[in-house]
């Protein structure tokens, strides 16, 4: 047989054989992706921030397609537009997204919070946190070296007077800053809920000894709250976000300005 012809035949035969083999394998073993999941993935922003509580956008898309109980408004990056698109794909009613923003739960600025030492070293919060809290007298407060500002994609965070400050009009609520904070001082909450801007659970006197801006646990807010959403324990007020209605009475009652009611651009 002509060697050229043989070579051509062998190669095309092999190619055909392998192609058919793969086709058959795909037919019997292939995994068909739900077309809904593909469509959902398409309309999610792809930020993979995890703010929805699932492992990235793909995880959220799969969860949405699988269970009708998963809410369509969990994507904080995409907002209402994405929620409406998701609802259209799933054939359910669109719900407005609740805008969530990150808050720094600390007011221990340079003049409020005492220092025990000057920190000289790697200028990240993570490094400083492992070494006498970067010289801060409060073991719970913001270190202020801006690890959160560094990871923020929308440049919403700046460090002012040694405490991270978040521009809520820019914040998309992706929680990246909250994950990177070594002191767990940042939380992402719906805008309507007020925040206790202190995380020091020591008794009032001990808190006052290190920082003039801290929560002393005086219980004024607890008494002011009409829905019982605030409890003071360990000398620190805590707000139950499932009970809170966002009326702002606690913020008005606090004599130290530790509770702040958030409005847009507050």
């Amino acid at each position, binding site marked *: 047989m002509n*060697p050229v012809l*043989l*070579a051509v035949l*062998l*190669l095309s035969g*092999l*190619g055909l054989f*392998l*192609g058919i*083999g*793969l086709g058959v*394998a*795909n037919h019997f*073993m*292939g*995994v068909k992706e739900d077309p809904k999941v593909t469509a959902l993935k398409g309309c999610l922003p792809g930020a993979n921030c995890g703010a929805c509580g699932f492992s990235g956008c793909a995880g959220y898309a799969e969860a949405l397609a699988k269970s009708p109980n998963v809410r369509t408004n969990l994507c904080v990056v995409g907002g209402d537009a994405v929620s409406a698109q998701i609802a259209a794909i799933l054939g359910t009613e669109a719900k407005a997204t609740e805008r969530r923003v990150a808050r720094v739960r600390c007011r221990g600025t340079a003049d409020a919070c005492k220092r025990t030492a000057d920190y000289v070293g790697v200028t990240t919060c993570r490094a400083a946190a492992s070494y006498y809290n970067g010289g801060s007298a409060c073991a719970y407060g913001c270190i202020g070296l801006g690890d959160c500002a560094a990871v923020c994609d929308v440049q919403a965070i700046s460090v002012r007077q040694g405490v991270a400050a978040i521009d809520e009009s820019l914040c998309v609520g992706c929680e990246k800053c909250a994950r990177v904070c070594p002191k767990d001082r940042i939380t992402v909450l719906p805008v309507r809920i007020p925040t206790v801007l202190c995380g020091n659970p020591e008794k009032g006197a001990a808190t006052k000894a290190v920082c003039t801006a801290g929560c002393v646990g005086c219980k004024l807010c607890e008494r002011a709250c009409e829905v019982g959403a605030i409890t003071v324990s360990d000398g620190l007020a805590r707000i139950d976000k499932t009970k809170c209605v966002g009326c702002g009475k606690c913020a008005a009652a606090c004599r130290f300005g530790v509770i702040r009611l958030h409005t847009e651009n507050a």
Partner: protein
Amino acid sequence: MMIKSLLAVFLAAILTENYVLTKFLGICPFLGVSKKFGTAVGMSVAVTVVMMIATAVTFPLYTLVLVPLDLAYLQTIVFILVIAALVQLVEIVLKRYIPALYRALGIYLPLITTNCAVLGITILVLEKSAADASYTFLHAMVNAFGTGVGYLVAMVLFAGVRERLESADVPRSLKGLPITLISAAIVALSFLGFGGLVEGLLGGGV
């Protein structure tokens, strides 16, 4: 005797003939995936599996089909075709039966399709078997496995080196890829020290 020669092939494939560090094959994933220990191991395991399957198919294909038909010169193109199809098949099977591993490997699986280390092992075992009549299919399979393990060793070693590089104070002009290449060269250099080790251990005949 058989076991001894298989052991020699296995050890040689890991140490003296390490594909990444002495033959410089498969450098792309070596540099690309060695940043983290976990992915380095995952990639190496995938490469090992594909290497063994590829050798198991191409070795008989060459000796039983290409050589009798006088088409040995088609070796490279046929092997690429076979390896590409095999990787696709492995991908389909993994996606169906072990989705967790499939997701963990992610992009690396398709990348293996064009990994020269896989093509390299299939061709080099044939060269060895042509040069030495006692080199059988079993030797080829052990060689493929050993090469995969060698790949794993190189990846894991280098992942360790890179983790230390992360915290090292590198001159600015060398940051990133330059220092990675330099440290890869030093690790490769250290593998030269294994030269002659296997012959010495098992008394020649490798």
